[in-house]
């Protein structure tokens, strides 16, 4: 049994589905776009709020598209994947890469607005940003996958989204910078993996390191390490043959 054929199968499936439900793009790209325009214009600083809004798009898209796993598992497509001889790890990777590709695509769509934000990153900066957006998409998708794998209901998923993910985004340097933060919030920002995604993206667009944060390359490395650890955890979780995963 080849490893990559099932991976490609699942990615392809997500791409086809996405193409047939184009309305989703409006939701995931649209609302962060409105946030960005309103908050950015209100503070008179469209540039500052741009990277954070882009990361929010990616987060919405990645996390909500992995939510489909809950229904997929209960009945549907996942069942037949799990009784096929395809290796579990390739099923997991396929599912994650599919959702990550969609999140990435929507992040890139948001990136098209970069001239309006007043950045001029040049071709190299745009490529760098595209790479960082992919890593961030991947990390969020894996996080979504891990959550969805443990959960029985989509309600629980919304609760985690509101109680954990949105607050993480608030203290990621999206709304205020590390240097302007007070006391314990600053420590929270430093510990928040999301801060490094935002910092890397901001750094790529400005073509210089962000004040109070490590160099772009270090931020990228932290994001990559975060994604890798979560991915390993997902494979371990999916390999367990339990009553719950088939309930």
């Amino acid at each position, binding site marked *: 049994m080849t490893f990559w*054929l099932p991976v490609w199968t699942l990615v392809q499936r997500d791409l086809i589905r996405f193409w047939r439900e184009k309305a989703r793009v409006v939701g995931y790209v649209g609302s962060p776009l409105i946030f960005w325009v309103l908050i950015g214009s209100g503070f008179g600083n469209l540039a500052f709020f741009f990277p954070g809004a882009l990361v929010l798009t990616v987060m919405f898209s990645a996390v909500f598209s992995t939510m489909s796993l809950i229904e997929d598992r209960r*009945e549907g497509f996942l*069942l037949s994947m799990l009784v096929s*001889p395809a290796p579990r790890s390739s099923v997991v990777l396929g599912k994650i890469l599919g959702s990550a590709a969609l999140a990435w695509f929507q992040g890139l769509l948001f990136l098209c607005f970069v001239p309006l934000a007043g950045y001029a990153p040049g071709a190299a900066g745009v490529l760098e940003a595209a790479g960082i957006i992919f890593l961030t998409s991947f990390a969020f998708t894996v996080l979504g996958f891990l959550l969805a794998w443990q959960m029985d209901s989509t309600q629980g998923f919304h609760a985690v989204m509101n109680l954990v993910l949105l607050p993480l985004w608030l203290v990621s340097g999206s709304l205020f910078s590390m240097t302007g933060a007070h006391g314990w919030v600053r420590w929270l920002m430093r510990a928040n993996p999301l801060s490094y995604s935002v910092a890397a993206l901001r750094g790529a667009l400005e073509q210089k390191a962000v004040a109070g944060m490590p160099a772009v390359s270090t931020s990228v490395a932290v994001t990559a390490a975060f994604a890798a650890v979560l991915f390993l955890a997902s494979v371990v979780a999916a390999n367990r043959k339990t*009553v719950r995963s088939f309930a």
Partner: protein
Amino acid sequence: MIVSVENVIFLYGERPALAGVSFEVRENEIFGVLGPNGGGKSTLFKILATMLPPRSGSARIAGFDVDRQSSEVRRRIGVVFQSQSLDRKLTVAENLRAQGQLFGLRGHKLTCRGNEVLERLGLATRRDDLVDSLSGGLRRRVEIAKGLLHEPSVLLMDEPSTGLDPGARRELWAYIEELRRSQGVTVLLTTHILDEADRCDRILLVHNGKVVTEGAPSELKARIGGDVVVLEVAGDPAVVREEILRRFGASATLVNGSLRVEIGNGHRFIAEVVEAFPGVVQSVALHKPTLEDVFLDETGVRLE
């Protein structure tokens, strides 16, 4: 034996879903597992489909252990789920392609196999339809096509007729029988529908996680012999039961308020019993034994 299950036990928490189930299925047989919902059928299905490991005991398909050699087993079984395992946002052909690729099929071989199963199941003209737009009967057919794509030697089906109208049900069975004849496939299905069980070569009756009995439907029914008469009586049925035993030497069982008597010559018994209890017998029904009667006889409870 293409499927052999030996003393399989499975617990959900403390509750035993299967309490030591054993049976064997012969090659090219249509084998049914019949029982009420919640009796352990679905758990058994999940174990055979390599989705759950048995707590103890063993289940083998084509000589491979479903738990320890799941990937060998998965190559040899086609699984048709009761719930939809199709992606409704994809077309029939896209669903099949995805399934084939999960089994390592690709290119020309995949296209050929896909066309073949679509043709066989009469879906050739529907290949580019979205699954969402198909009727329940057609969807079940696509499920079967999907299960057959990798040429399995055993087809496992969970409640294949549930949710289908009588027409679709008849069609489905025509396909199942055709498959067995022309492809040499062994079919193992679970059901709680008597009609469906009657069409199997052999059935296994399961109740409360245990095997009640097994055999060919005709053979099981012949064990009861004669006729089954069901009487509804005015007053206390227990009193009437005593009377029937005393006068006719026939033992009646009380099921849902009516009296059920298994007896050699039903016609004569009816005439006599109506005569014997004037005004007491409210209604009489006579039928040849069904699998429901077999189940009732063995367990004391109704199947449905």
